[in-house]
């Protein structure tokens, strides 16, 4: 109980300097959880620094929520350790871990007002009445909820309820706040708005947040680092930029960048570049240097947004534009470059300069945007 957040100074209000990120807030070592024969989480390990916003990204069944629940203490790992602020909490009950948790379903106490809900964790910590009133007031102020203090949760909208839940999770300044798809139940516009709000509050207060979502865009917008999870494994744990531009597995390239995959063989390598002969079109594409031997069968991965249309026969391949869809600032085009059965090559080009259906175009890409994966690498 000694290291509960009671002693920490009051919540910093807008304009205050972000808390400096010092040291590890949380570390997870070789965490494993199985349900019968199914491995839900397989040897997950990571270190999270204080003040960091980390997202577990994956589709359902990827193990992201199970990992979060093990950190929260709602589910016990088969093996591995969880350390919060240097304290091993692996086998502790949830209430002894001093973490904050924001649930997808808000889970505000229906019989308490907003004020009482937010005050609840403070009363548990024996904070004095005046202090509670002050800190709850400040926290509600940050979330723009001051005028709703006396209302019951059911009198609030979904977005407001989730803001209250957020206040309740951060009012006692836990060293780490866990959020389980907190915006999952909200509509798109509100979600975008709250993404920004949560991020702002996190930065201003220097909160350490672990966030779970299946929404790539949300993960990219909010996170300092993202752990992409699949089948209980962490595929890659990196900054959004790294994940996007340097995916380490075909899955990550596909999941985050929705990349086009083209089979080919490494024909030639020099100090900076690798040249790949594409299997189907026979064209030659230049990629940045990879540590793969000449002659290796590879998958070439390029995101639709990193491909450019050029004059026919100027690029690494040529094809007819079969579809061209105008989506606001972009045109999404599908180009037939191979035989009929292969998927269309997907392009996203700025509207205005976009190709039109039926046009014959060449395709090029900056070698830096071209990723290569050994063909046997799965995904």
């Amino acid at each position, binding site marked *: 109980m000694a290291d509960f957040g009671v002693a920490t100074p009051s919540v910093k209000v807008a304009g205050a300097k972000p808390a400096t990120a010092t040291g590890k807030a949380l570390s997870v070592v070789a965490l494993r959880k199985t349900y019968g024969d199914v491995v839900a989480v397989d040897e997950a390990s990571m270190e999270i620094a204080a003040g960091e916003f980390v997202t577990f990204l994956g589709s359902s069944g990827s193990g992201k929520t199970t990992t979060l629940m093990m950190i929260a203490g709602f589910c016990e790992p088969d093996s591995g350790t969880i350390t919060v602020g240097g304290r091993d909490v692996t086998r502790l009950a949830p209430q002894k871990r001093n973490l904050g*948790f924001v649930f997808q*379903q808000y*889970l505000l*106490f229906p*019989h308490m*007002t907003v004020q009482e809900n937010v005050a609840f964790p403070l009363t*548990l910590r024996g904070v004095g009445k005046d202090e509670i009133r002050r800190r709850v007031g400040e926290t509600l102020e940050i979330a723009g909820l001051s005028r709703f*203090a*006396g209302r019951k949760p059911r009198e609030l909208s979904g977005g407001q309820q989730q803001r209250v839940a957020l206040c309740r999770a951060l009012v*006692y300044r836990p060293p780490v706040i866990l959020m389980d798809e907190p915006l999952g139940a909200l509509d798109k516009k509100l979600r975008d708005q709250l993404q920004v709000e949560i991020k702002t509050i996190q930065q201003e207060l220097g909160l350490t947040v672990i966030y779970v979502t299946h929404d790539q865009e949300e993960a990219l917008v909010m996170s300092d680092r993202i752990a992409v999870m699949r089948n209980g494994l962490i595929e890659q744990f990196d900054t959004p930029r790294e994940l996007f531009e340097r995916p380490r597995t075909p899955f990550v390239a596909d999941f985050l960048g929705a990349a086009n995959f083209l089979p080919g063989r490494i024909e030639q390598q020099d100090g900076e570049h690798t040249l790949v002969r594409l299997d189907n079109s026979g064209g030659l594409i230049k990629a940045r240097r990879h540590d793969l031997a000449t002659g290796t069968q590879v998958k070439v991965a390029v995101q639709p947004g990193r491909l450019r249309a050029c004059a026919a026969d100027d690029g690494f391949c040529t094809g007819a534009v079969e579809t061209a869809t105008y989506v606001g600032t972009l045109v999404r085009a599908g180009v037939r470059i191979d035989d009929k059965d292969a998927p269309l090559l997907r392009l996203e080009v700025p509207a205005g300069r976009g190709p039109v259906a039926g046009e014959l175009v060449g395709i090029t890409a900056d070698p830096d945007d071209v990723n290569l994966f050994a063909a046997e690498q799965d995904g």
Partner: protein
Amino acid sequence: MAALTAPARPRKLLASRRTRVGILYALPVVVYLLVLFVYPIFSTLLLSLKDADGSFTLHWYADALSGVNLSVLFTTLRISAETAVLSLVFGFVLAQAITRLKPILAGLAMLVVVVPHFVSALVRTYGWIIMLGDKGLVNETLTALSIPGAPFQLLYNELGVVIGTTSMMLPYTVLLLYGVMRGVDRRLLAAAASMGAGRVTIFRRVYLPLVAPGLASAGLLSFILSLGYYITPALMGGPNQTMIATLINQQVTKENQWNGAAAQGVILLVLTLAGLLLVKVVSSLGASRRRRNGS
């Protein structure tokens, strides 16, 4: 003016037509209630105010509220209150246990709670005597353990009656509380735990307030049901546990004295309504107090 009223007309017509249709639909229910509810109550009320020669009198009430009748009335209230409290406590524990059981086991447990209801009063009495009698299971066990004072008198007194009525009320309280408890979002308790609340705190500050409405209605229900009970008190108690329903029954079936019975029936009804009102007042007081604290 004409221009103003003209457009309003069809709407009014529509409204009145809709009202008429509504009345038509409501009519069967209204008639049903009038015939089976309002009329009997009013005729009972009239009966209780009529003397043998048909003149107005209050002496049936004076009679019902004096002497042994009054003391029976107090006994009825006391036993009902004791039953309500005990069936709440045991019902809570049982319902709580049942919500944690697997569905099949929960169904089985529910069956065990409900079955005594379908057993004839005599068989039930016999069962209770086997359990609680001087030579019953409980007393034999206590005597075998040489507990001082054993055998205890567990039947034919207030303890016996309250044991009996409580067991009869348990199905109601358990079913009601079980429903309410199933309705409580377990994740709320997890949420409280995630903020650092221990089991006792979660129970006291989250769980209990959430099931409180169920507790109030279960307690009230068993209180009200107990008010009209007389078979179990007669079987398991003595004359000191005579309930008002016994007197009503005696007057009607033995003495053919409907007026006095009607007066006692009306008193029972008033008590029931008073009980309802009390719970309503208490709960709204509680709500307003919480609102005050909140703001």
